[in-house]
């Protein structure tokens, strides 16, 4: 039960920031979308050019590679992060003594920017100076770990760095989910004779399914928006083998100076994001409605 506003001043205080925000969200989206339908190059032009920019963008090799990469990267990053995060959460749930210490360690990567992450991992992956050189120096002269300069493997270095960054987050959320399981359920399972494996697979995992979906969606949208990490780790290379949609947008807008196509690429990025977010939104609504009718 919320109260009605009285007086003019409160309305002013409330509406000014809200309107700016709404203008920014709606207006900018509309603006960029409009630009995507124009033939703008270095400067914005506002004549209608239909889907010309979209066709140009979709035909560019950059775009095809970027979205193919996104598929591989998305599955690898999200899949690995969730699996490792879940396993770590299950292990920590076993009444581990060093829990606080471990949690502090697992979560610190989130405080570090993707730029720092990418830079440091690029040094580690550097075959001439990093892990490969280190292992070679130890005596295993035949050891090779030069993925980062290999067109076919460079993408995996990005996945590793991204997983390194995100596991703590997944673990923290899964642990919260596991902890929220009714303790009586543990007791009932004990009496029923369920061993730890059966318990986690049949009882705990379904219980954290809602949280898992949240984690999935959040990680997926991070994956789609990935820009900083790639710029810092590989710069999109070697060549364009690790480019991703966000880099394609930047490339069109600021490196090639083609605002129309850049906007089209941005809108495509937004659409791929919606493909992930819309089903989630509908799922949340459906679930809420189901809970209301069941009580």
């Amino acid at each position, binding site marked *: 039960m919320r109260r009605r506003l009285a007086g003019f001043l409160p309305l002013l205080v409330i509406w000014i920031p809200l309107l700016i925000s709404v203008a920014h969200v709606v207006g900018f989206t509309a603006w960029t979308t409009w630009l995507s339908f124009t033939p703008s190059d270095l400067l914005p032009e506002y004549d209608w050019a239909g889907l010309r920019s979209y066709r140009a963008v979709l035909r560019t090799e950059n775009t095809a590679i970027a979205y193919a990469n996104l598929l591989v990267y998305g599955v690898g990053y999200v899949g690995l992060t969730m699996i490792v995060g879940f396993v770590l959460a299950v292990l920590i749930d076993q009444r581990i003594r060093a829990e606080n210490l471990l949690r502090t360690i697992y979560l610190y990567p989130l405080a570090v920017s993707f730029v720092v992450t990418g830079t440091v991992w690029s040094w580690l992956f550097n075959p001439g100076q990093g892990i490969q050189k280190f292992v070679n120096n130890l005596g295993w002269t035949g050891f090779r770990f030069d993925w980062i300069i290999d067109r076919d493997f460079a993408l995996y270095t990005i996945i590793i760095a991204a997983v390194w960054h995100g596991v703590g987050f997944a673990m923290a959320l899964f642990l919260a989910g596991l902890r929220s399981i*009714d303790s*009586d*359920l543990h*007791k*009932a*399972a*004990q*009496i*029923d*004779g*369920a*061993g730890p494996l*059966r318990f986690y697979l*049949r*009882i705990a995992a*379904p*219980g954290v*399914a809602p949280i898992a979906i949240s984690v999935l969606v959040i990680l997926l949208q991070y994956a789609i928006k990935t820009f900083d990490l790639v710029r810092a780790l590989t710069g999109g290379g070697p060549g364009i083998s690790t480019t991703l949609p966000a880099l394609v947008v930047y490339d069109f807008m600021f490196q090639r100076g083609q605002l129309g196509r850049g906007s089209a690429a941005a809108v495509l990025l937004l659409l791929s994001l919606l493909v992930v977010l819309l089903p989630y939104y509908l799922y949340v609504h459906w679930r809420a409605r189901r*809970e209301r009718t*069941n009580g």
Partner: protein
Amino acid sequence: MAALRVKGLHKQFGNTEVLKGIDLTVRNGEFAVLLGPSGCGKSTLLNLIAGLETPNAGTIEIAERVVNAVPAKDRDIAMVFQSYALYPSMTVRRNITFGMECRGVPKPKQQEAVARVASLLQIDQLLERKPSQLSGGQRQRVAMGRALVRDPKLFLFDEPLSNLDAQLRVDMRTEIKQLHGRIRSTIIYVTHDQIEAMTMASRIAVMNKGEIQQFAEPDEVYNRPANLFVARFLGTPPMNTLKARLVRDGDGLAAAIGLAKLPLPAQSETARAFIDRDVFLGLRPECITDSGRPGTTFEAEVLTTEPTGAETIVLAAIGGERLRARVSPDVRLVTGQRTTFLADMRSACLFDPATEKRIA
């Protein structure tokens, strides 16, 4: 044969001793209730019996077998929880068969068992539903079904009705009691609600601060409480415990409170040892009513009246003590006025102030 025998059980959590030496023997087919306020250790005792916790000292025997080292799943027990603890992602059927699955019972036998239990509890039509689609009462029945299907030596109930609303609680109480009548298994039932205890138990173990205060039939626990705690715990409103002096009254004894002298029925030698000493007189409010018939009477000042419709509960003062009486609803009482009350001294109890135990 004793279904459960607990000897000298101690349990500590950190520095707190939660159970201080529990001895309990429950016979086959009994409905034993562990009753007590929160923190008395009743749930801990149940967890120890179930094998969910290990004791610091003492033995637990289930069906004449020492089970201290036996894990919960092999103790031949079943448990029903306050929160039902149904597996949310499984159907009712799966919930019931889960334990059997873990034990490797062949599928046909599993389905047989489910069918048997479902018809007994009338949950046949709920078998394919998930717990979230059931009402509180239905969930509780499924939880009982899961327990029944194990065909255990002991049923353990941990405050199973606390999450239900009042009406449902009354219905489920009757159902559980009827179930017990039909299957004649041994039940250990934990609750803080004395009505549940009084209506369902064959014997009640009243617990406080980690010790069993009295383990006896409801009638015994109610009318001949072993100590002051039990006396004050059972009954709504609870038993009046008034400080009095035991005096000679002709050949017999009487309790003197203030100016009133209330004669007591024939007393044992132990009681006589307290002559001219202070005791606590225990008298239930329903034994104190408005005067009108012949009997022992005394005068007390009315402090407050609480008309409940069926009767009026009166708070009165006598000789520095306060007591509650239950008078008939049509009696007119005036606050502040001295009124005559009638006391039925036949079920009066006497308590030793030092040990708090009952002497008569």
